């Protein structure tokens, strides 16, 4: 895979496309709510009307799972954006000056998995989408801070930064004009890989009931509600799980492909 950066990129794109295109389409047509319950048509077999059949509530499985995928990806994207923005700002500050307190807080993440943050938030405030986003973002924050800081430092020791400083540019200008554009590709790679982790976190939290509450369906809750039917209808459990796997695999491969492409571009610049 490492030898064919574009292959990983393409494979990741295709995997994501398989899930995300129909999911977005369905969300545009149907909204982000679960398909209607229809007790007359429980466990309907595969047909043109219901490409994957219906579930124990008579809901179309494909529509339900794809709407869930859309909602799960939405949560993941918002959390990763939050972690990326806050993490980049904190990372840049930590790179510019010795800020042990920021790095110490980043270390705190080593001990606080999202499920504990979510458990605290749900106990205090009840389940909410905001709480889930916060828990996933907080978990992703330390890595973001570390990576930004490290990348920014490698830029800050360059001669042109010293020159810029001598020319009287302030730290904010230097960060914005010199450091940020240089580390942006790396941050994009990191964000893509974080999306894979965020989707796994969302699935786990929702499965446990610590994620965004009903009525909006999501993949983790779909799994939890279908779990008891595993013996008589194993496909019910297989489909949401496979969807999660496709999404995570897609974002992982996309991230790997982007990283390899980035490395290749670097090698071309400095032969």
């Amino acid at each position, binding site marked *: 895979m490492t030898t064919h950066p574009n292959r990983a990129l393409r494979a990741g794109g295709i995997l994501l496309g398989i899930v995300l295109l129909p999911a977005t389409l369905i969300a545009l047509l149907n909204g982000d709510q679960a398909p209607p319950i229809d007790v007359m048509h429980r466990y309907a077999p595969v047909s043109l009307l219901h490409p994957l059949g219906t579930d124990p509530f008579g809901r179309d499985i494909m529509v339900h799972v794809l709407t869930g995928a859309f909602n799960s990806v939405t949560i993941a994207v918002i959390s990763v954006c939050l972690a990326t923005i806050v993490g980049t700002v904190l990372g840049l500050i930590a790179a510019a000056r010795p800020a042990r307190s920021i790095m*110490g807080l980043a270390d705190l993440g080593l001990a*606080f998995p999202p499920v504990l943050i979510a458990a605290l938030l749900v106990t205090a405030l009840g389940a909410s989408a905001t709480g889930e986003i916060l828990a996933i973002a907080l978990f992703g924050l330390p890595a973001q801070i570390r990576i930004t800081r490290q990348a920014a430092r490698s830029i800050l020791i360059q001669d042109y930064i010293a020159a810029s400083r001598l020319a009287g540019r302030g730290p904010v200008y230097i960060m914005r004009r010199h450091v940020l554009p240089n580390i942006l590709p790396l941050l994009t790679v990191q964000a893509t890989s974080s999306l894979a982790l965020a989707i796994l976190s969302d*699935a786990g939290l929702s499965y446990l009931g*610590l994620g965004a509450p009903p009525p909006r369906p999501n993949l983790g809750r779909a*799994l939890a509600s279908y779990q008891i039917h*595993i013996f008589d209808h194993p496909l019910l*459990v297989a489909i949401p799980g496979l969807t999660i796997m496709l999404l995570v695999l897609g974002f992982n491969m996309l991230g790997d492909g982007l990283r390899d492409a980035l490395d290749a571009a670097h090698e071309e610049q400095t032969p």
Partner: protein
Amino acid sequence: MDKPAHRRLPGRRRFLGTMTGMDIFRIPVERLLLLIVASLVIFAAMNLLPGDPAAVMLGLDASPESLTALHHQLGLELSLPSRYAHWINAFLHGDLGRSYIYDVPVSRLIGERLQSSLPLILLAMLLSLGTGIPLGTMAAANRGTALDNGLMGVIQLFKSIPDFWLAMMMTFLFSLTLHWLPSSGFPGWGEGIAPALRALTLPAIALAIPQAAITARFMRSSLIETLSQDFIRTARAQGYSRGGVLWRIALPNALIPVLTLAGIQLPVLVTGTIIVESVFSLPGCGKLLLEAVNQRDIPVVQNLVMLIVTAVMILNVLMTALVRWLDPRLGTES
């Protein structure tokens, strides 16, 4: 700050000798400060946010007298700082409070639940290191071959599988279809070791597979990186065979970052344990935490989360110390 590297005898691996005077204190002190911050975060989440725990516990139709009585019993009429001091003091003395719901000491609840959680985590960790390290080594030793590509493909796939879904699919295959292993529950250690281990096998495998994939991938890149170092070339020049270099020189060096990774992955393993316990209805700490969250059993949530965070932090310090002991070069870096 550090002693110059040449003054240290090669091969001498004294635990404290690898750290400078400041380091010995700095790392534990920093972790301690972090733990204090963590305790403040946990306390704040449990006590500052809106909602009266007594009202939640007693329900909507509680009489004002019973509310006041419960307030008194929970110490809610005290000021926040003194409640915090009270909690930390008790926590340090091993008193984890009393569960609202079960009305027994939280420490007893946790002690009972650790019987399945602790062996599960240990088993999963052993399994993931025990398969991930050999697989990663195999891939690195055969770098670029079909074997390497195939292994990396499988690893990428397993890295992307949610562990709890894997757990469900494994119960379908091994418990419901083949009837090899129990699908849920835990008989306890009183029934003998075999049934307890049988109950933990599937959960441990489900937990270990994604971790093993991450370990294998990391092991592979670590070994490849080590193999490209100058001292490997030197060893080859000194007459070591290709295999000799790999096993005796590269592997021990490449293993060190993998141990660091195992330390970093610990919280992820904790998360996985909580979820997998739920899939297999194992009566472990994860299940306890979820029940407590659902019933707003604040003493259980507060103390259990604090205990997990403390344990992870302590293990992390031990892991850092172990890695530094194994590789004295690391202590001189920062």
